[in-house]
């Protein structure tokens, strides 16, 4: 039990409807993560990913079950769990420095102005916004705003960083740069992170564990994919790694077909012991390796091009 830094134990979320019944978004969900791990949840819209994250953050309450973080059941929000919001959620009347300092003063209430400023500045520098401290959010680009969001979350030195599709509103180039930043910061500081995403490549690049959720309502955590790629992977040559397509295809297959049919086809699913999959390794469940799979599925690619 000691290796479970975060432990979600049998949580459920139900919304009552007008007819006296209710809609179950998910129930009996078990999930755990070790300290320093990066976990990503992937699933279609409506499977309750955001609800899981909000429950972890303390912004929402489970209808059943409990969440234990660092040996303690969570109760409401906490400065130990920082949230990076999808819409960055900066306070528009405060400057960059003001937004970060607001978080710093919330955590250390008796710090004086100089100390708060120095601490906030450190994290503004960390996300590469040196020189923009006195700008207001309206003067920043989307990527810079999200950088402020990250600096604000990191500045309170949380035990866990919770990210709800933090880069989904950004263009591909900015998204890549910020993924690099987040990965660098998490590796350097040993930060435990839990992230929701729609982007399979983002999950493969960032996560140690990828949690696959089936479609809601009545969503379940179908399986946990352990990322077989090395810890020192880089974004540039990620797709050249021999195991990359094995992981990617496994996840995409799940999202395209198995996420819909999972409940009907898998009858012996035990939510407390979700199967752990390591694509490309001996105990692999998927049948094909990366190389064979791509060639078999896309025979057209093997043909020499005739158009040029």
């Amino acid at each position, binding site marked *: 039990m000691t290796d479970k830094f975060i432990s979600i134990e049998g949580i459920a979320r139900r919304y009552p409807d007008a007819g006296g019944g209710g809609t179950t978004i998910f129930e009996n969900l078990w999930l755990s993560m070790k300290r320093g791990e990066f976990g990503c949840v992937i699933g279609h819209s409506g499977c309750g990913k955001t609800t899981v994250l909000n429950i972890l953050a303390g*912004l929402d309450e489970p209808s059943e079950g409990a969440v234990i973080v660092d040996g303690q059941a969570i109760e409401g929000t906490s400065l130990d769990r920082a949230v990076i919001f999808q819409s960055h959620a900066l306070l528009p009347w405060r400057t960059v420095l003001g937004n970060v300092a607001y978080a710093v003063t919330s955590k250390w209430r008796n710090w004086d102005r100089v100390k708060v400023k120095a601490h906030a500045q450190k994290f503004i520098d960390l996300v590469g916004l040196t020189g923009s401290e006195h700008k207001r959010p309206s003067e920043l680009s989307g990527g810079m705003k999200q950088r402020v969001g990250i600096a604000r979350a990191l500045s309170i030195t949380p035990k866990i960083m919770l990210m709800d599709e933090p880069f989904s509103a950004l263009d591909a180039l900015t998204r890549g740069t910020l993924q690099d930043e987040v990965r660098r910061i998490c590796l350097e500081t040993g930060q435990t992170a839990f992230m929701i995403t729609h982007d399979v490549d983002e999950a493969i690049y960032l996560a140690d564990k990828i949690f696959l959720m089936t479609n809601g309502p009545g969503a379940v955590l179908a399986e946990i994919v352990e990322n077989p790629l090395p810890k020192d992977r880089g974004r540039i040559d990620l797709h050249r790694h021999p195991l990359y397509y094995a992981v990617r295809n496994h996840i995409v297959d799940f999202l395209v077909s198995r996420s819909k049919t999972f409940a009907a086809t898998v009858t012996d699913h035990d939510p407390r012991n979700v199967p752990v999959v390591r694509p490309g390794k001996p105990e692999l469940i998927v049948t094909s390796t990366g190389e064979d799979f791509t060639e078999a599925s896309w025979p057209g690619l093997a043909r020499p091009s005739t158009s040029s």
Partner: protein
Amino acid sequence: MTASLRIRAAVVSIALFAAFLGIWHLATRPTAATTTMSPEYAKLMGLTATQGKSAMPGPLDVGAKLWEHLRQPFYDNGPNDKGLGIQLGYSIARVGLGYLLAVIVAIPLGFLIGMSPLISKALDPFIQVLKPISPLAWMPLALYTIKDSSISAIFVIFICSVWPMLLNTAFGVAAVRKEWINVARTLEVGTVRRAFTVILPAAAPTILTGMRISIGIAWLVIVAAEMLVGGTGIGYFVWNEWNNLSITNVIIAILMIGIVGMLLDQILARFTRMVTFPE
């Protein structure tokens, strides 16, 4: 381009004003004296009857009188003859006091209504009934209970300016973006600090808009209220000059009411700009 637009607009404004003055001047030209009468009777009838002078003062009469007022705005020759500045001062003081009281009541109460759905639902029927009541309808009740006409006027200002501020504050507070509240929640910010550091700045533009509507209404109502309570103030001045049949002074008072109203509005507009944040 903007500068030239402003200049062109100013030229049109001045032309319109000149045209207005011209028509006014022409319309109030003296007509030829039509009747002859005995000197005693003529004295009794005044210039209108004897020389065909228009009963409506022309722009030149008003201008001359206005100059007279502006040269001596604060003279005080007893209860019925005070300078325009003194009368406006009384009105502004009453509006200021009533308005200040309304701010003190409406903003905290609006916060409460905006933050608590229970209070909001519980107070809603009272607000809905009280809001459409003409502020002057309160006057007899105020005079009877307060027994002081000047304080009654302040009460009337209070009651008329409280509603827009209350409703706008409640709306602004209730409409603060959930994500900003969530930021405060994840940072474990207490209720009081959250109210001052997140909700107040977020709702400030809406609150100030309510305050701007209120000051406009208060200035509208003070004239009517002072006509009723009498004694001092620009509203009383208008009514007193009507009783004196000094249409010139009535026109000057109307002009002054307009100018002061505009200034009050501009002050609040400036405050609104100060708290408005770009997103």
